[in-house]
């Protein structure tokens, strides 16, 4: 599974081995150099050269407004002189060439740091300069210390902000700072890729021999070079000198990371190196494990105060259950009743999380909590009703995918419930009152989640939407002699389509007001009467029935006229109109839309022309579009099916999607030509 490598560490009392588990993506060989240690390759501050100033962006990206010429970072773990505790010291040094005014924003720098009531990250030794070439000399404008602002953005975030002076098109800017962090767990992530291209980005991490990190490289870009060396006695702990492995990661000629529409989490694709602490060798012997096997994690989570312990709190619900499940005859009905109870009882406070903020009792009392509070309450309540309920840890779409090689708890940011009834299991999230039983919100539909069971080992489960986004339209009507269509439009929405519509309607004071707005928006169609049913019974299809009237023509030329049958959800714009795609396309959910139209004509007509009947599909059964139209017994009929079977399409499928939509758009531009029969 992972590669292990060993490095001998000289230590007075102990002979020990350190293990560094490497992700597969990093499975390159490491060189062991025991005696030679080279110094950090940081470049000199302020040493601007003509090569820097005249760097030709064409060699990297002729579209660039600014380019990072050089970027160097180094991180190490040291003893803080004041607190005598271990801190991470991270030094960052950047040199950027600014080509034009569009690139000026690269000179507005924001460094976010973490803070809470106990711990905080600090920034020091900040310096920044602008270099301009004036009268055959490089002139340095040094940033004032007072031009640096710190802003307490929120409870946990502080921003250090600064901008550079005397910026001109062509300027080279340079800055460096030191960040001290009490967070050793994630060491310091290094992003090779940024929003502008980089000529070179190098990161040196000094990892003390007693610390063992899991390291993973994400993104499409390859490392240009990496090496591992021994750095002797880099840290002294309780009088013990500890050696470090000095890890160097170098990437050159890195393209800018450009976000695209409908993209899954950028962190899935942005080239960066991540660390997570696996274990620490204690000076006095023994090891403390941080990242472990799932077996260890299972045990810990099951007994964790804000996770496993909350799942066990059946006591809170024991007395409520008979009332909640009153009238439920089987387990499934019971589960539904409990799900509905929690949805109503605890409001999601819009925070994600896998741990309860305090405890579920408090959430129930306050009727408010984060995702974990809501769903741990659900699990506890289901268990109180003697149902088999488990917790599922997952990472939301915008948070990226999780590491499957070993447990990385910080990858997870969300928790849902799983209830097993008979031979079936259902994934439940009670944070969205408008979702039906067993349909997870779209944000949760992201690869796999880990099921935590209090008694059995944990396991992976696919996070799939149990329902598609489905809409059916049926229009039955007749055309009048003065060129109007009068009829009934019946719409059934299910799955995510119903959820979206219910959410939309709930924003209005009454369905009547919603329909009034709809009527105003549909300028060509008048809604004469309406009824909306199943608005509150989210388990059923949402049904809208509209008596409508709309004008096809003014009736003056009813001997022969054109008539477009594509007036319900027509497709006129191509959502995939670009020529290139780098990253997968995320459409949210698979969808299915069907339209059936039957319009009786006032007299006998002939159909001279009609849109072509179509049946087209996407490769690998990714989707299909079917269209059939005709005239029979004086009734115009249209039947259209549009299916997109995947939530996510790969980048190389983009052009197929583009062509798929283009074909539909072209066909929808054509019309019926009707001629009165003699």
């Amino acid at each position, binding site marked *: 599974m992972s590669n292990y490598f060993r490095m001998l560490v000289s230590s007075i009392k102990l002979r020990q081995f350190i293990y560094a588990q490497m992700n597969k993506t990093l499975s390159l060989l490491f060189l062991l150099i025991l005696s030679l240690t080279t110094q950090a390759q940081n470049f000199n501050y302020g040493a601007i050269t003509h090569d820097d100033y005249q760097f030709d962006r064409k060699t990297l990206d*002729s*579209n*660039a*407004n600014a380019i990072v010429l050089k970027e160097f970072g180094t991180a190490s773990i040291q003893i803080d002189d004041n607190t005598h505790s271990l801190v991470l010291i991270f030094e960052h040094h950047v040199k950027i060439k600014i080509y*034009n*005014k*569009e690139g*000026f924003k690269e000179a*507005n720098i924001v460094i976010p740091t973490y803070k809470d009531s106990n711990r905080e990250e600090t920034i020091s030794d900040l310096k920044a300069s602008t270099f301009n070439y004036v009268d055959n000399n490089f002139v340095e*404008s040094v940033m*004032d210390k007072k*031009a640096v*602002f710190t*802003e*307490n*953005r*929120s*409870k946990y975030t502080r921003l250090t*902000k600064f*901008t550079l*002076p*005397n*910026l*001109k098109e062509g300027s080279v800017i340079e800055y460096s700072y030191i960040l001290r962090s009490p967070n050793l767990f994630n060491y310091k992530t290094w992003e090779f890729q940024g929003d502008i291209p980089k000529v070179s980005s190098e990161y040196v991490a000094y990892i003390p021999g007693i610390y063992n990190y899991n390291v993973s490289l994400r993104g499409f870009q390859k490392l240009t070079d990496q090496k591992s060396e021994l750095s002797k006695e880099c840290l002294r702990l309780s009088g013990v000198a500890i050696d470090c492995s000095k890890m160097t990661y170098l990437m050159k000629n890195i393209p800018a990371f450009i976000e695209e529409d409908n993209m899954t989490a950028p962190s899935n694709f942005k080239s960066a190196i991540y660390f997570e602490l696996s274990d620490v060798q204690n000076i006095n012997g023994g090891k403390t494990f941080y990242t472990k096997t799932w077996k260890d994690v299972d045990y810990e989570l099951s007994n964790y105060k804000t996770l496993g312990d909350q799942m066990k709190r059946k006591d809170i619900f024991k007395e409520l259950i008979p009332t909640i499940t009153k009238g439920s005859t089987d387990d499934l009905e019971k589960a539904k009743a409990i799900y509905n109870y929690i*949805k*109503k*009882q*605890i*409001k999601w406070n819009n925070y994600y999380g896998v741990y309860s903020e305090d405890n579920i009792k408090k959430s129930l009392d*306050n*009727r*408010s909590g984060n995702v974990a509070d809501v769903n741990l309450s659900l699990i506890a309540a289901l268990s109180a009703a003697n149902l088999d309920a488990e917790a599922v840890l997952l990472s939301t779409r915008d948070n990226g995918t999780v590491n499957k090689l070993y447990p990385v708890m910080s990858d997870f940011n969300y928790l849902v419930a799983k209830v097993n009834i008979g031979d079936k299991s259902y994934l439940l999230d009670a944070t969205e*009152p408008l979702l039906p039983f067993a349909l997870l919100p779209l944000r949760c539909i992201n690869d796999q989640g880990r099921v935590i069971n209090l008694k059995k080992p944990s396991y992976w489960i696919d996070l799939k939407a149990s329902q598609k986004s489905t809409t059916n339209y049926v229009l039955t009507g007749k055309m009048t002699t003065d060129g109007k269509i009068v009829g009934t439009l019946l719409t059934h929405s299910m799955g995510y389509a119903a959820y979206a519509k219910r959410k939309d309607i*709930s*924003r*209005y*004071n009454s369905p009547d007001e919603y329909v009034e*707005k709809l*009527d*105003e*928006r549909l*300028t*060509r169609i008048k809604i004469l009467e309406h009824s909306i049913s199943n608005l509150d019974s989210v388990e059923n299809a949402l049904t809208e029935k509209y008596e409508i009237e709309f004008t096809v023509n003014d009736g003056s030329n009813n001997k022969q006229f*054109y008539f477009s049958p594509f007036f319900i959800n027509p497709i*006129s*714009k*191509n959502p995939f*109109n*670009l020529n290139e795609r780098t990253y997968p396309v995320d459409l949210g959910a698979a969808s299915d839309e069907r339209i059936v139209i039957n319009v009786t004509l006032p007299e006998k007509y002939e159909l001279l*022309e009609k*849109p072509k009947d179509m049946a087209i599909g996407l490769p690998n059964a990714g989707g299909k579009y079917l269209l059939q139209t005709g005239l029979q017994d004086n009734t115009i009929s249209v039947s259209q099916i549009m299916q997109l079977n995947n939530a996510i399409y790969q980048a190389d499928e983009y052009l197929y999607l583009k062509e798929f*939509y*283009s074909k539909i*758009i*072209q*066909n929808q*531009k*054509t*019309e019926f*030509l009707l001629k009165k029969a003699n």
Partner: protein
Amino acid sequence: MKFLFTVAFLLFISVIGYAQDNYDVDLIPASLRNRANACIRNQETVIDMRTPDNVMLSVKKAITVFNQNGEDEARLVIYYDKNISIKGIKGEVYNSIGLAVTKFNQSNFADVSAADGFSLFVDSRVKHYLPSVNEYPYTVVYNYEIRNKQNLIIPDWTPKPADDVSVEKSSYTFICKPTDQTRVKTQNYNGTPEVITDEKQKKTIWKVNNILAVRTEPYSPAHETYATSIQIAPLDFYYYNHKGNYTNWQELGKWIYDDLLKERKTLPPATVQMVKDLVKNEKTDKDKARKIYQYLQDKTRYISVQIGIGGFQPIAASEVDRLGYGDCKALVNYMQSLLSAADIESHYCVVEAGSEKKSMDPKYASMVQGNHIILCMPLKGDTTWLECTSQKIPFGFLSDFTDDRLVLACTPEGGKLLHTPKLTTAENLQIRKANLIIEADGNITGKMNTVYEGSQYENQEELIGKSITEQHKLLKETYNIDNIDFETVAFAQKKDMAPKLTEEITLNIRNYAPVNGNKMFLQLNTFNIKKSIPEIKNRILPVYINRGYTDEDTIVYTLPDNVDTTLIIGQDKTFKSDFGQYVCKTSIEGKKLTYYRKFILNDGTFPAEKYADFSKFINDVNSADYLKLALSLKK
């Protein structure tokens, strides 16, 4: 008699004090529920101006939220900075039958920076809180007290904050010393306030009851023009260690000039000399100013820093000279200093910027109006305006950001209201000419030239300077047509007081005119389709069109040989109304099919009953814009 009245009043007060407030939602009259997403059951706002540096604001508010859309109104938001201290916040949440569900206090509030996203630094902060309630309707009741250490800006009163909110009752009480002088701006308030004066204080009370929620109507005037509001400005004020007094714009402008600006204008001697050298060959003041403006645009960039005196005082000109950046105040002040080095007079002008035009109120001077600064040069009758925060905008052009409105010029003689030039319907042009060749298979290739002027000058301006890939991407957003691609893209600018931007592109659109059987379907208006607008019955507010414009499109299609041109019948349309005009014409000459479209939208305010005409006009244009020809193909 007066005595009697006071006793009655006191009794009334005490009754309220003792009564247990009942927040049962059923007690809200049906009329107040209609169209309301929230209802303010009761709000009491009391301002006690004890001394200029000690103004207490206390608010008690009970609001019922009917649905999710009403939650914005239930969120309690308090902005504060060094000049404001929050004395206490507490509240309760009641369910629909009026039972208390939860309580909250200051510790439940999120406390975040009020930075607006682009500022380098803003020193004001905001506390906000929204109760978590899952069942509608619910009622939030809270009260809080705030101490303002200034009285230049007195919290104003808008009892009905939005269209979708109804108000059961709301009151606003202003307490000051009987000797204090204040000016009051009363807007859409019926009746006169109640005034109670004794030796120690003068109390003025405004009250409203039962204001209904209304539907938000498109093309309406700004909410503040029809909402009830009271604003108060004391004569003598104190602000961040500054003292002053004003009753009109002249005096306020004088104070701004003397206290906030005058000391900020000194430039280093070298810069003064540089300016003199820069303009020594220019003959007129205007040419000199143009040269200096170019220097400003090359040297500086806009960075917002809002610190200290409420964002009212610019950093010194010498600082901008050294750093090369500043916010709108700093850059205007710097430009003004550079101009005065060349002996050119100019005025620092406070303006309410934004595409929607808002003027300073000529009858009521106050410090809360305006959010941006521009520069005005009188130039002996050839008044020229400068926007100093953009590095690209042409000299003397304000754009739709600050056109056609009253601004406050702060001059050494005091404040003066000036009117910025208007960009008119006839000037706001978009003139497009395209020559497109249609192939037999429906593909289109050709050239398109578009000229943008007036308020439309900036339509495509952001594309200039962007990389080619970026330009193509943005063009696909502007011309969002299936299968469109661009071969060449070029922009030219005429950067003067009446600027002009020309966009020249070669394009192709695969399968634009699909062939079906022996017909080719061609939508004539390719690039400029007017969006439809809602049709609203029983319109209440007047129709307000903020800015007019004129669009003209001429597209010449060269048809493929297999189209039977003899069968083409043009469908010309002409609509004319108070709101504008529309013409579309098709003509055929040999293989050339010419489509011409002209659309004029007039600005102005029109009576409410005219809305039906307006929506009909726009929606007729929308339908006509979709005009499609079915071209017969020769067999």
